[in-house]
């Protein structure tokens, strides 16, 4: 990071600060698809300004938990509370308004829109222009659009100058790591209090991963977000999480500090099977499948 960049990150984040950090709570959340119990009675508490990771083998139901929180699925039973108020049954957009945004495991950007437009869509809830505003473009609307544009650039500048320079670029021309950043910028655009990151370092090389870790930490430290994370790279999770919850077959098998989880027998077993657990130390494995 060069000095110029650091200097301006200050400007960017100041505008993004979250005033009241929020908490999230899952109470015995269960989701059944047909006969399959994808998530079973998961309890989870994420305190304000905390980074909590969910880990677990493939198919453990991690992404389903995210889909439940963000309203894409409705839990079969159980309750999800944002700052103590239930958000079960709310539509995804209402949940975004409530202050929870997310990214997706297999990046879901609007590929045929520019970087800037993507972030502008993210600000949808923040803008008020209605049909009449769109048609007649009163000064109020123009000003709002201008502000939205500036804010979008500020959001992009959170990740350094490269994305700002490429704001007019169509996202499909960006590199994988850049697209992840744009996705996070889009999620930030809705002024969230809590952000859910679904494998934010998947498909990244080491340098990019390191960079990602840095900005995830900055999301909390500088902006004040509460972060719920799904991550496969154990080195990443262990490094940045305040707490880790482990899912297996839809159930939470362990929850605790990174150190506790690392040593837990059941976790090792779930990850590597019984035999593997005996021979391999989990902390050494950094596989990312």
């Amino acid at each position, binding site marked *: 990071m060069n000095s110029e960049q650091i200097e301006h990150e200050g400007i960017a984040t100041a505008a993004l600060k979250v005033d009241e950090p929020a908490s999230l709570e899952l109470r015995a959340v269960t989701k059944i698809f047909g006969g399959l119990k994808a998530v079973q009675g998961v309890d989870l508490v994420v305190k304000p300004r905390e980074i909590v990771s969910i880990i677990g083998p493939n198919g453990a139901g991690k*992404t389903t938990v995210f*889909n439940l929180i963000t309203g*894409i699925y409705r839990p079969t039973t159980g309750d999800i509370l944002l700052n103590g108020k239930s958000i079960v049954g709310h539509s995804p957009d209402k949940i975004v308004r409530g202050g929870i945004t997310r990214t*997706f495991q*297999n990046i879901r950007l609007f590929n045929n829109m520019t970087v800037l437009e993507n972030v502008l869509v993210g600000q949808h809830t923040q803008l008020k222009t209605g049909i009449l505003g769109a048609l007649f473009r009163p000064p109020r609307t123009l000003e709002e659009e201008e502000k939205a544009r500036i804010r979008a650039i500020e959001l992009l500048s959170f990740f350094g100058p490269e994305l700002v320079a490429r704001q007019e670029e169509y996202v499909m021309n960006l590199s994988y790591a850049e697209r992840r950043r744009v996705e996070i910028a889009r999620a930030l655009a809705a002024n969230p209090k809590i952000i859910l990151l679904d494998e934010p370092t998947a498909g990244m090389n080491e340098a990019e991963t390191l960079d990602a870790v840095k900005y995830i930490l900055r999301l909390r430290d500088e902006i004040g977000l509460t972060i719920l994370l799904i991550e496969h790279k154990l080195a990443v999770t262990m490094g940045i999480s305040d707490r880790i919850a482990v899912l297996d077959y839809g159930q939470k098998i362990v929850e605790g500090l990174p150190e506790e989880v690392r040593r837990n027998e059941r976790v090792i077993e779930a990850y590597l099977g019984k035999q593997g657990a005996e021979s391999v130390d989990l902390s050494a494995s950094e596989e990312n499948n």
Partner: protein
Amino acid sequence: MVTYVNLLIVGLSLGAIYALIALGYTMVYGIIELINFAHGDIFMVGTFITIALMSALGITANHPPTAITWLLVGKLALVCVGAFLLCAVLGIVIERIAYRPLRNAPRLAPLISAIGVSLVLQDSAKLWMGNAQISFPNIPTPVITLGVFEIDTVDIFVVLAALVLMICLQILITRTRMGRAMRAVAQDREAASLMGINVNGIIAFTFFIGAGLAGAAGFIYALKFPNTQFTLGFNLGLVAFTCAVLGGIGDVVGAMVGGFIVGVIQSFIAAIPASVLPHSGNAWQYAIIFALLILILVFRPSGLFGQQTPDKV
């Protein structure tokens, strides 16, 4: 009571024809997600081919056969096979010319091309046999009397034929190598081709079967109904597509059941007297069918038998 049973029978045999057309719709949709608007017109061409083949075999509307003989049954079987094959070939040709080049085009391009094909088929048929309605030769089928009910054997035949064809199709799809390949292509074209499946071949085969079924439906239609016209296909096709959607698109049994349901409903609607609806039920039948469809889809968004559309999150 007698009236209702008769309505039911009429409805079932109408439904059988819808079902056969719907099968083709649903197969094509299942494999390339294209609403093949030309499918109804292939059925129409099937009825025309039936007339042509029958007259080639000496069965004409002016000189209909007087009695059922084994010779007649043989001839009719020949006509049926002919209609199936000719329409199937037509289906392949259409796929090759109008749809295959658009495989990777924007989603609506093949739809417009399908509409174009439909127009081409209609006008070609018009050039072939003219604008007017054309009568089918009347086949003197015996009527079975069961107590107070009189059932024309042709109705039984129509329903049975549809069921048999559906079962064959179901076996083809679920039990054979070809069917497995079809399902694979439907799931993921690229992966299927990586597994060594000839994707173009499979899609062409699907069109072959689907269009062939429409041809067979054309033949069966000729047995049951009095006449045909070049405009017959499009609307019938739309209703058949509705049946496929009603049953859950992409699902063979669903298409069949949807066909029978719509057929029966339609025949009952037609019996609604003018005192209830202005101009009696006939004038409203499509409106009511589509209204029912909407109602059903509102409560079951993927049709009666369909699974929820997978949406990868």
